[in-house]
């Protein structure tokens, strides 16, 4: 297993606060505007070089106003943070599974960070909650 669903934390999509995204159970990680991201540790092995995609699976999306959401994926290694790609549910409350190409950019130990990104029109009254499965490399 190359991915370890450990760490947590991230930046608020509309600010710089850092919050922990709770892990609901063995497979689901809940994100919302106060816990908008999570990280998973990746250990570098030979097998990693053969992987082409990160699979992002949104199992449940609560977004009654159907605000346009995106899920942005970053690779963090050392002091470098690299944007890997972004996927979008359509309609905006429709769960699904997505892939983001790695493009040979995971060349060391590091962390994948998935961020729930909200649009500017989001307000504190708007409920948004997305539960993800752990990220998978394939």
């Amino acid at each position, binding site marked *: 297993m190359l991915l370890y669903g450990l760490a947590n934390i991230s930046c608020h999509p509309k600010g710089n606060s850092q919050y922990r995204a709770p892990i609901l159970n063995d497979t689901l990680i809940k994100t919302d505007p106060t816990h908008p991201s999570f990280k998973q540790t990746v250990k570098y092995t030979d097998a990693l070089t053969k992987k082409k995609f990160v699979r992002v699976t949104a199992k449940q999306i609560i977004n009654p106003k159907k605000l346009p959401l995106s899920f942005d994926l970053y690779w963090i290694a050392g002091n470098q943070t690299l944007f890997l790609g972004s996927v979008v549910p359509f309609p905006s409350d429709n769960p*699904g599974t*997505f892939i983001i*190409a790695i493009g040979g950019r995971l060349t060391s130990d590091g962390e994948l960070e998935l961020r729930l990104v909200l649009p500017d029109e989001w307000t504190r009254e708007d409920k948004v909650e997305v539960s993800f499965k752990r990220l998978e490399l394939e």
Partner: protein
Amino acid sequence: MEQYLDLSPSQLDRRIFIKGIGWITVGLLAGLTLGGCEGCNEKIKNRPVRRRLRTGSAEVDAAINTYRQAIQLMLARSAANAADTRGLKAQSGIHGTFGGGFNFCQHYTDHFFSWHRAYLVWFERICQELTGDKNFGLPYWNWNQDPAIHPAFLDTNSPLYKFRTRTTMAGQSQTATSTLDLIFSDTNFFSFGSQIESTPHNRIHTWIGGSNSDLASGGSPMDPLFWMHHCMVDYCWAKWNLEMKNSNTNDPTWFNTKWDHFYDANGNPVETTAGATVLMPLLSYRYESSAIGSNAAVADLTKGDFKKAEERIRKGADIKFNIKQRVAMVDTALLSIARPFSTTTRNDVSAFSQIINNDRTKDNVFVSVEYASLPADSDFFVRVFINYPNADANTPVTDPHYAGSFAFFGTDTGDQTHGGHRHQPRFLVNVTPTIANLRRSGELKDNSEINVQLVAVPNGEKFGKPDMNLRLNKLDLILTPVIIRTEGN
């Protein structure tokens, strides 16, 4: 390797594309008397051009004018009769509805590209027929090169206008060159399509559409911009496949997938196979090339290049479905077409638990039917039902047990060979939605048995040969992953 009824592009006659009817229709193909095709090459050469939506081009302005007229006419048809199959409302309803979600459209499946290509082509033909402009080609919105919506769609007095939250994709990473370059570097048909869908495609719907518009909903085709957006999605596939010379799958399972909910230029229902869609940009329409990301526009194909491209597209690439699980239902049986057939499986019900509980986002369930030979007459088609032993030819397709249908292409002439090999008809019907619906309604439970019904239905009022028998070789339920392959082609 599994072999199925061969409706692959290698077997599809160019004349069928030119005639513009049979390329999708198994039933029509079977009954079609193909005459000569004088002028085929000329018609292919002069097929409609889909141009990049932009300002400052007289040709694009003309296409927009025709399109505006077509939308006006389609709106009027819906206003007069909401069920009019050439009205915008009925056309949009094929895809889905605002508030009601998706209907027949393929999203998050391996048929995202193919289903929407067929949808566009039929819509384009309706536009051509209604406006009388047989050369009309849908323009495409190249959101990478032209992030802002074309002004023609922003005029609030125009039928092309619908409420949208935003008017530009500028600044969005999902349509940026760096993102698209990475996606276009993927040489695998399945994963390329999945990325185009998840990233630029979905973002346009939700970003431009916002939170309360047609474009952001299953009813997005009610927004005239939908068709320009999906034309661009289709161009992404065409550019990747034709201009960049990547290969589509040649998997028979993929090719033989069939849809029967589209309407032709005259508003009549037609059936469409996924396999036929791969040749459409070569034979039914063509794209005015433009850049997508760093992949520049290219010159039109020369005559020699065209032939090579057609051969390559017909051949496809060896990218296959996996079969994760196979549950044998019937080994052999002699079926009378006049009597519906119902399986009486002896399988332990546990064999079905994975089928019933499959994750629709990852697996599809198919009924796989194999006959010993073609029928003596093919004036009928076969409907497939799940767990409905009383199903017969009068059972409506709206019944929740109905899963799909298939038809025979050709008849048993005694020779039973086709292209040097015995033609053994095999069919696949995707029963995933039916099983999911029956599970949701509580009719299927974890420990339920699954049985399958095959019901022959005459094309006309009655069977030409009602005493005809067919030898069933095998009937299986198979579970296949919704494949995102990561190895190279």
